[in-house]
């Protein structure tokens, strides 16, 4: 990988020993860039608003820029900014901004804004170049709208035989993030009835619109553990947080995620598989009901070509039928999909990817609209066509 080291030796030269705090050793500049286009084969819009039946670039196009500087041999500072498309155009955010202190070769403490690992590739999910698909299967990766915490994590890494072990506890809060409310919520209930019943409820509105609600997640605590060698990695994770959304009347509702996953890259065979369970109590369950899901991806490398296929499924995780809030409980999402794709590493730091995903939305409860991860029930299976170009620099 090519990246630039810009020496700031002037400072060191000018103040050779007097001020070690100013001895900024170097600045490492690196980044990643994905340009992606999507199109749904029939009249349907995904519930993040990103994919429609028009060719669109907003869903997958993004650029990241990372700056890292050594403060001293033990300490580094890192900032990573990611600009991406949204329904309001393009905007940039800090995804990472932290100080890393290495207590030893196997023990790092990081503090600041951090991406936390709900799943296998969560902490580099913006870096398309780093994984086979154009985007990881939505049936699993949609489930946690939070991706960063302000807090602290610890990377404890050690080796046993030829195995690498990682234990990564993290703690913090996720404030001011704007979550997408997928409207599983009132889908089962007649919207007109709901609007009349609770006139001030923020989920008022028209079925089929994207609604956004600011919420905070306090007492965020989690752990990620993995074991692996050069051919495979297996991981497990668990996290808990208390969700508050004032506009919603949601105060400190407990949310938890458990997940296991594994990936194999052995003799040209590539496998990814993950499973998760989500549980959310109280009023927050209206927007984020209990779900579970899984996917498996199989691929085989032919030189610089990696064709792959994925089956993915999301469904009900014993969501309670009543008792969550005045409106009852949320209605879980149910859908399954099959996808085929290919990654072609056509240049040193660039990959071209093509994918076709056939999504079959279903009704979690009989009689309700078969909406899946779409804004409104498409009434049929939907093919989603995607093409993307990923680079790192």
């Amino acid at each position, binding site marked *: *990988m*090519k*990246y630039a*080291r810009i020496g700031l030796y002037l400072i060191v030269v000018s103040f050779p020993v007097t001020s070690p705090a100013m001895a900024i050793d170097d600045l*490492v500049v*690196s980044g*990643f860039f994905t340009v992606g286009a999507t199109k749904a084969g029939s009249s349907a819009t995904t519930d993040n608003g990103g994919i429609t039946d028009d060719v669109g670039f907003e869903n997958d196009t993004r650029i*990241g820029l*990372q700056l*890292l500087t050594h403060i001293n041999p033990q300490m580094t500072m*890192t900032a*990573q900014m990611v600009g991406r498309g949204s329904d309001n155009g393009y905007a940039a955010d800090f995804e*990472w901004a*932290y100080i*890393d202190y290495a207590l030893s*070769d196997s023990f790092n403490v*990081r503090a600041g804004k*951090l*991406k936390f690992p709900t799943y296998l*590739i969560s*902490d*580099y999910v*913006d*870096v398309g*170049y*780093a*994984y086979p698909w154009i985007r990881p299967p939505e049936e699993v990766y949609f489930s946690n709208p939070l991706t960063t915490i302000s807090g602290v994590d610890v*990377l404890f890494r050690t*080796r046993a035989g*030829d195995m*690498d072990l990682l234990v990564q506890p993290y703690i913090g809060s996720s404030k001011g993030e704007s979550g997408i409310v997928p409207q599983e919520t009132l889908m089962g209930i007649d919207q007109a009835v709901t609007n009349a019943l609770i006139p001030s409820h923020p989920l008022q509105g028209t079925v089929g619109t994207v609604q956004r609600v600011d919420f905070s997640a306090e007492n965020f605590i989690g752990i990620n553990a993995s074991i692996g060698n*050069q051919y495979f990695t297996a991981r497990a994770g668990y996290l808990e947080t208390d969700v508050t959304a004032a506009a919603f009347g949601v105060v400190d509702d407990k949310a938890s995620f458990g997940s296991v996953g594994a990936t194999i*890259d052995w003799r040209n065979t590539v496998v990814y598989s993950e499973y998760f369970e989500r549980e959310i109590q109280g009023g927050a369950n209206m927007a984020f009901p209990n779900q579970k899901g899984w996917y498996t991806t199989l691929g085989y490398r032919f030189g*610089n070509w990696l064709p792959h296929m994925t089956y993915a499924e999301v469904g009900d995780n014993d969501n309670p039928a009543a008792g969550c809030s005045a409106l009852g409980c949320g209605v879980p999402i149910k859908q399954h999909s099959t996808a085929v794709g290919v990654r072609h*590493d056509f240049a*040193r*730091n660039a*990959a071209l990817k093509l994918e076709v995903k056939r999504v079959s939305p279903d009704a979690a409860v009989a009689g309700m609209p078969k909406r899946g991860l779409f804004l409104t029930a498409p009434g049929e299976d939907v093919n989603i066509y995607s093409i993307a170009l990923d680079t*790192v620099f």
Partner: protein
Amino acid sequence: MSIIKITSIILAGLLLVSAYARADVAVIVHPDNPLTSISVDDLRNLYLGKVRTYPNGHQAEIIDLGDGTPLCTQFYAAVLNKTSAQLNAYRAQRLFSGKGLPPNTVATDSEAVAWVARNPQGLAYVDKSKVNGDVKILMTIQ
């Protein structure tokens, strides 16, 4: 195009590939480094960023050759069991999740030799024909 012509092009291609494969790669360190040999596993762990020390516990500084050179492709295949693309993806995973920086690179073998000659903790891999008396060979990969 005749079958014979196609066959001879393929054969010429294979010969070129095997010519690369026969280039001897020397793993070199500073002459003051007390090590006399190193295992493929230790080398792999160094280049994958999993360890930062030599087997004797001394701090190691490694340098990589510019991505895409035939020599680095050969080294990645023989020692890391990875193609350039696989290694780049692995390094991107680590770099952008704050788990480790990729090694520094130099553009040519001669620069790598000169760099190791200046760095008592240094380790590099180069074309064996570029090795001079300023560095010590720990391992040769054919």
